[in-house]
C-alpha cells in the first residue's frame, strides 16, 4: 500500500515524501537493501533530474549526472545523520556531482553547432541565444556552475553556501569573479 502511495506521488513529481516512509526507506537502504533504495530513487528522481537539468542540456548528460548522484548517495548514505531533511542532503550530493562533471568536461570540447543552430531558429531573435551560448561556453566550468545557481536557480550566496557546504565568503568571492569574467566576456569583441 505504501509503495503505491510513494510511486504515485513521485510520478506526479510534486508531492513531498511521507517522512515516516522515507525514514523507513533510508533505514533499510543503510542496511544494504537495494529495493528500499530503489524506492528512495523513485521518491527523489524528479527533483534530481530538475537540478541536474540546470547544468546539462542533453538528456544523456542529465541522466548520467542523476544516476551518478544516486550512486554517490548509496555509497555515502552512512554519512547522512538525519538532522536535516534527506532532500537537502541529496541536493548537496547532486550539486557536488554536477560540479565535478562540469569540471571534468574537456574545456576544448567543440560545441554542437547543428544543435546551436536548431535552438537559435526556434527563438524570436535567433542570433542572440546562439551567440550567447558560444560565449558562455567559454566560461570556466566553475564560473558557469555558480552563475547558473545565482541567475538560473535564483539562489542567494548564503543559500548556495549552505547547500554546497562552502563558506559564504568563498561563494561571494567566486561569484564576484564569475560575474566579472562574464562581463568581460560580453564586452570583448
Amino acid at each position, binding site marked *: 500500500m505504501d509503495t503505491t502511495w510513494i510511486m504515485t506521488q513521485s510520478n506526479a*513529481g510534486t508531492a513531498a515524501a511521507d517522512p515516516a516512509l522515507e525514514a523507513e526507506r533510508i533505514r533499510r537502504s543503510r542496511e*544494504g537493501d*537495494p*529495493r528500499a*533504495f*530503489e*524506492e528512495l*530513487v*523513485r521518491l527523489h*528522481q*524528479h527533483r534530481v*533530474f*530538475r537540478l*541536474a*537539468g*540546470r547544468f*546539462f*542540456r*542533453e*538528456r544523456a*548528460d*542529465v*541522466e548520467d549526472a*542523476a*544516476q551518478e548522484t*544516486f*550512486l554517490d548517495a*548509496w*555509497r555515502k548514505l552512512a554519512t547522512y545523520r538525519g538532522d536535516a531533511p534527506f532532500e537537502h542532503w541529496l541536493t548537496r550530493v547532486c550539486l557536488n556531482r554536477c560540479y565535478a562533471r562540469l569540471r571534468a568536461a574537456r574545456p576544448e570540447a567543440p560545441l554542437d553547432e547543428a544543435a546551436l543552430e536548431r535552438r537559435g531558429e526556434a527563438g524570436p*531573435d*535567433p*542570433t*542572440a*541565444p546562439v*551567440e*550567447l*551560448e558560444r*560565449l*558562455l561556453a567559454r566560461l570556466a566550468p566553475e564560473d558557469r556552475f555558480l*552563475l*547558473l545557481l*545565482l*541567475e*538560473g536557480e*535564483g539562489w542567494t550566496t548564503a543559500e548556495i553556501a549552505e547547500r554546497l557546504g562552502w563558506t559564504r565568503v568563498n561563494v561571494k568571492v567566486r561569484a564576484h569573479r564569475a560575474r566579472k569574467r*562574464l*562581463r568581460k566576456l*560580453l564586452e570583448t569583441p
Partner: protein
Amino acid sequence: MSHRRPDLDDARAWLRAHRSDAVPDAGFAARVASRLERRPEDELGPAALRLLPAALALTAAVGAVAVVRALDAPATTAEAATDTGTAEAAAPTEDLLAWVLGEELE
C-alpha cells in the same frame, strides 16, 4: 534581421532559461538499482551462510577420519610389534610414534 551583441541582461535571461526538460523515464530507478555496488559486509553474510553446510560436512568428515584413525592406531601398533620386518619397512611412511613403539616392543 539586425544583429545585436548580447549584453548582461541577455546573459542573465539565457542563464535563467538554460535548463533541460529531461524527466526520468519509468525504468530510471531500476537502472540505478542495477548499478548499486554490493558492500563487502553485505556480501560476506550471505556467502558465509551459503558455505556453512559445506563447511559443516567437511568438518564432520575430517572428524570421522580422525576418530577412525585413532581407533585403528593400537591395532596397527600391535600388528607392527609382531612383525619386525614389516615395521621396519613401513617406518618411513607410517606413523612415527607407532614405528618407535614397535622398535621398543621389539
